[in-house]
């Protein structure tokens, strides 16, 4: 390759001294690893995928909560907000995923095959299905709002039910996607990562709806409904996350120890989960909460949801770089 001609034949000629990896010595080999070099590789995913994980949760969560509200609350404002949230969150999702591909022009290759054991394949199909049903549900909602009366309510209800499996899958498959790899941090808590992401999707969706309906001046009863749902979701999220960390033990350190732990504990757990839980459960018990508190709590919960996905990806990269963690996982 012609570009290699510019590479100096020997780094020392450039005046560079060999300091690379100098903390890794032959004694690492003695201790049973190979110069501390990584065994497995992490995926290349960064901000595009992290942001998609966040929007996907809202797209799936918005649809699920909209369907629940449709059949159990008859709260039209809540149904409307959930439908719009789902559509608004699904619109940026495919572009984010396509831009992350090494060959974006080949994104349709995802849909040339169905592989039941590949979360990436299942997720691509689930997102496609959810786009269809969320589009129908939100489209009918737009028509209803424009005409001032319900448009094709039966079709809307059918779409709300048929879209549920896809929506539920989009809510949580991102956790499964990470779990079905060889990255110790993700793989070791296989059966808890998907559930954690699902609970996080519920909590961030409820927070987003509380934010939207708070700003647009929804009913007080709606606020209470969301506070109740939020309390349940955040409790589940926090519990599942802690169970996952307990399962991980030492392998959880890339997430819980500095440097990422310095973001994880105060932000993701403290501000993103514990604080909303305290405020929400207070509201459920009948404590008055100002609009300002409600908006701030919602924003905190949303940022917690984003930071959970962000840190899980970045900590996974660190985890993959630790051969000792992978050896521990594969030692049996």
């Amino acid at each position, binding site marked *: *390759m012609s*570009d290699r001609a510019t*590479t100096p034949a020997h*780094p020392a000629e450039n005046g560079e001294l060999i300091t*690379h990896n*100098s903390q890794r010595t032959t004694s690492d*080999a003695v201790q*049973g690893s*190979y*110069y501390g*070099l*990584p*065994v*497995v*590789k*992490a995926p*290349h995913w960064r901000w595009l995928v992290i942001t998609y994980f966040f929007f996907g949760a809202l797209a799936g969560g918005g649809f*699920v909560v909209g369907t*629940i*509200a449709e059949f159990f*609350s008859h709260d039209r404002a809540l149904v409307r907000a959930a439908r719009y949230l789902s559509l608004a969150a699904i619109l940026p999702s495919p572009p984010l995923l396509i831009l*992350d591909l*090494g*060959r974006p022009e*080949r*994104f349709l*290759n*995802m849909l040339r*095959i169905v*592989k*039941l054991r*590949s979360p*990436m394949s*299942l997720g*691509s199909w689930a997102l496609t299905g959810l786009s269809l049903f969320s589009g129908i549900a939100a489209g009918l909602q737009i028509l209803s709002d424009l005409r001032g009366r319900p448009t094709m309510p039966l079709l809307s209800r059918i779409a709300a039910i048929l879209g549920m499996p896809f929506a*539920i*899958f989009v*809510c949580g*498959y991102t956790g*499964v996607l990470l*779990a*079905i*790899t*060889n*990255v110790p941090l*993700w793989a070791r808590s*296989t*059966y808890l990562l*998907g*559930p954690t*992401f*699902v*609970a996080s999707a519920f909590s961030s969706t409820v927070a987003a709806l509380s934010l939207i309906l708070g700003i647009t001046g929804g009913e007080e009863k709606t606020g209470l409904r969301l506070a109740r*749902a939020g309390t*349940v979701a955040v409790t589940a999220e926090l519990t599942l996350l802690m169970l996952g960390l307990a399962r991980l033990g030492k392998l959880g350190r890339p997430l819980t120890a500095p440097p990422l732990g310095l973001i994880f504990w105060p932000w993701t757990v403290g501000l993103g989960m514990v604080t909303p839980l305290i405020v929400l459960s207070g509201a459920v018990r009948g404590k008055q909460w100002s609009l300002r508190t409600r908006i701030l709590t919602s924003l905190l919960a949303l940022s917690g949801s984003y930071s959970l996905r962000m840190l899980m990806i970045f900590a*996974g990269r660190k985890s*993959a770089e630790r*051969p000792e963690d992978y*050896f521990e996982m*594969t030692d049996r």
Partner: protein
Amino acid sequence: MTETITLTPHSSSPTAKGFLTDTSLCIGCKACEVACKQWNQLPLDDLDWFGTSYDNTRKLGATTWRHVTFAEVPGAGGAGGQTNWLMMSDVCKHCQHAGCLEACPTGAIIRTEFNTVVIQQDVCNGCGYCVPACPYGVVDLNVEGSAADGKAHKCTLCYDRLSDGLEPACAKACPTDSIIFGDVIELQERAERRVDDLRDKGLPAYLYGNEEAGAGGGIGNLGAQFILLDDSARYNLPAHPSLPQDRTFGAVAAMAATALALTAATAWAFKKS
């Protein structure tokens, strides 16, 4: 596009081709690395000295499909005593049940008529999911440098040479026959004889790439097996890796169960007023 997904186990398939890499014969000449790069027209990796080892290649990657490891293990006698060299030419294992193949959402990664695992370059869209799915860290995306094409790459077991009845370039170039190419069934028999031989000579040799060591765990047997002389971690190989996709069903079920429970709880929260 013809996809041949053969589910026949390596060990019983008469058409399965593979490698046996006998590390007791490896002299660390890196002829395999060079032959691989030349035949497959792979560009030179960034030249960067490791500093504490002769292993400046360091890892398998998108443009490195053979990688010779150099582990130095102080032997008896302590400091100043004899140092044992553990050299091994690492390569894609062409697993019987391959994590990369199962993860691939486009069907770009296929099982060939030789029972090898190959990435179809005209199908791969560079999603990168095969990369963490490999239990041995073999597959990599080519996303850096001027040769970057955004696609996943790894050893093809010289699919083009095999199609023409030639052996892979690395095996052809290996001057000590540390790398042997052949039918997997024959290679396994040969490996067993060689392991017995080495043990008779007092070496702690064993075969890496079956249920006992290196594979199993849903992966089955490896198409590329190794005769090792020390703990597999010394060669940066996992002792008992597993196939991630064996957990997909359980993980999806746990996720769906949680979602259903939360749906019920949310319905309750909305209804109660």
